[in-house]
């Protein structure tokens, strides 16, 4: 990907982070650090990697993306809005009374949302089923599933991993938002996932490890995953929870807080200077 495109996507990522902060703050809703961490993954998918048509969101030839870590819904909603699936006005209803955009995305939320998630460990089995059906129909589309690291505690994740590996579902790409924090502690202290890459390899997955905030690395890994056949793909994306806002980065408490007043201003100011010119 050329410099110009990278710059464009990086700037979209800044916009998305601003959206996340703004809509979460006005609804006084938390899970904000969780939404900030997979931003580049989503931007790369929706603005570069996936074949999609916002004007025809159910187009059968599209690639699918399931945000299995549903608590990062604000990020998905912002990306869908910025990609043209729905209006700014709708985005701004996020978590407001009567809105179809709760924290966790629903199939009914908006065009472009492929599955209802929020209870961890559901998205991968659903994505697996999509991949199976696509293979059944001999379609070439891919299914992308974004998992969080804490989510990998769930048995259902490994049930899918075993199935996909054994059945060589090479149209399935899992991205793990590996930010090393979960809800009540550090991943290494709660239930260490390491050696994570080896675990997936042992389940017969093709594994890549990348910096999950590096657009160029992300798109390269995803393109590689689309091309290489014979195994399902796992992209372990090393990320920072709360990425982009200094006081949120790598802080457990920002799983639970919503920035208001001065902290909100500071967040937007810090993001503002992150645009590439």
């Amino acid at each position, binding site marked *: 990907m050329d410099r110009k495109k990278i710059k464009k996507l990086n700037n979209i990522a800044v916009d998305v982070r601003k959206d996340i902060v703004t809509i979460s703050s006005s609804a006084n809703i938390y899970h904000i650090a969780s939404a900030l961490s997979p931003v580049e993954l989503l931007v790369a998918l929706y603005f570069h990697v996936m074949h999609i048509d916002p004007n025809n969101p159910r187009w059968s030839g599209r690639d699918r993306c399931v945000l299995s870590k549903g608590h990062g819904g604000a990020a998905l909603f912002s990306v869908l809005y910025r990609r043209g699936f729905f209006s700014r006005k709708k985005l701004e209803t996020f978590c407001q*009374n009567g809105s179809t955009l709760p924290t966790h995305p629903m199939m009914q939320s908006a065009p472009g949302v492929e599955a209802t998630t929020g*209870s961890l460990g559901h998205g991968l089995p659903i994505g697996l089923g999509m991949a199976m059906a696509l293979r059944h129909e001999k379609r070439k589309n891919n299914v992308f599933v974004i998992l969080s690291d804490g989510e990998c505690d769930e*048995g259902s994740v490994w049930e899918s991993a075993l199935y996909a590996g054994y059945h060589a579902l090479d149209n399935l790409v899992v991205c793990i938002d590996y930010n090393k924090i979960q809800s009540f502690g550090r991943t290494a202290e709660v239930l260490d996932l390491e050696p994570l890459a080896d675990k997936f390899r042992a389940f017969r997955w093709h594994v890549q490890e990348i910096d999950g905030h590096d657009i160029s690395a992300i798109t390269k890994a995803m393109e590689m995953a689309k091309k290489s056949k014979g195994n399902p793909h796992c992209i372990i994306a090393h990320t920072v929870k709360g990425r982009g806002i200094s006081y949120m980065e790598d802080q457990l*408490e920002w799983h639970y807080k919503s920035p208001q007043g001065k902290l909100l201003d500071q967040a937007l100011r810090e993001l503002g200077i992150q645009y590439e010119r």
Partner: protein
Amino acid sequence: MRQAFIDTLHTLAKNDKKIILMNGDLGFSVLEDFIAAYPDRSYNMGVAEANMIGAAAGYSFEGYTVFVYSIVPFVTMRVFEQVRNDIGMQKANVKIVGVGSGFTYGQLGPTHHAVEDIALMRSIPNMTVVCPGDPAETREATKALVKMKGPAYLRIGKKGEPVVHKALTSFSLKQSILVRHGNDCALLATGNMVYAAVETAHNLKKHGIEAAVVSVPVVKPIDQKGITSICRKTGTVFTLEEHTVIGGLGSAVAELLLEQNIPVKHFYRFGVPDTFTYFAGSQEFIRRQYGLTPVQISRKILSILRSVSSRTTEDSALLRRSSQILRKR
């Protein structure tokens, strides 16, 4: 309620070394003190609820009282078969604590709405189902559950719930609690709807109707004696719960009254209709969509009483009063 629960458990754990607390990677700003005081009896089991339930059962078989703590759907619905086989079937001394009852987490969306859990837990043999109505009931219920050996489900809200009982003089897992006297109708409420029932009774009083309010913290085994007696006395019965009308308190009371041949003039279940809530909203907002605020409940009750009066020739004081009210409007 969360705080009332954990403070009580904290105190009990001081003398009862057999109390264990497992969490499913949850409990920020709630469980920290407990964990600091009893690190060797606290476990973060990770985001792996099925494993947590099985492990809790196994731990309890070695003589411990194991509390498991997570958000309602994750410790009741996701793990239903673990609860049924590992805890219910084997009478494990495990207490499942679900936080976020009803629409506590309204903004988080329907995956986090918790309105089917009472029905599920109630259907499991050996399971005691407790839905405290306020912090005082939560404290007493926690104490009672530690004393009681065997499977139980404790359904609590979040924080800052209003106080129903200034002083709760007696509490038992066998009895419902009469919160307010009244002869015209009975409001039977559970969990976070008890306070709404109290407010409804205040509204009805303005219309000349004296409603008894009964808190039913223990939905299973249900207090047959207390409930049949208040229903017999008032003859008009309303149940209130932040839960689907299918299989919760309303169902339990209906089954009881029919099977015991208790004649009631009117019966209505206030609860969540048979639908998913495909929108976000505060708890208050979602309640309003389903007619579960005290004002809406009162209005519905008044209209029901009117329909009773048109159907029956009984000349009770209640009916006279309610039709007077309705004429005045």
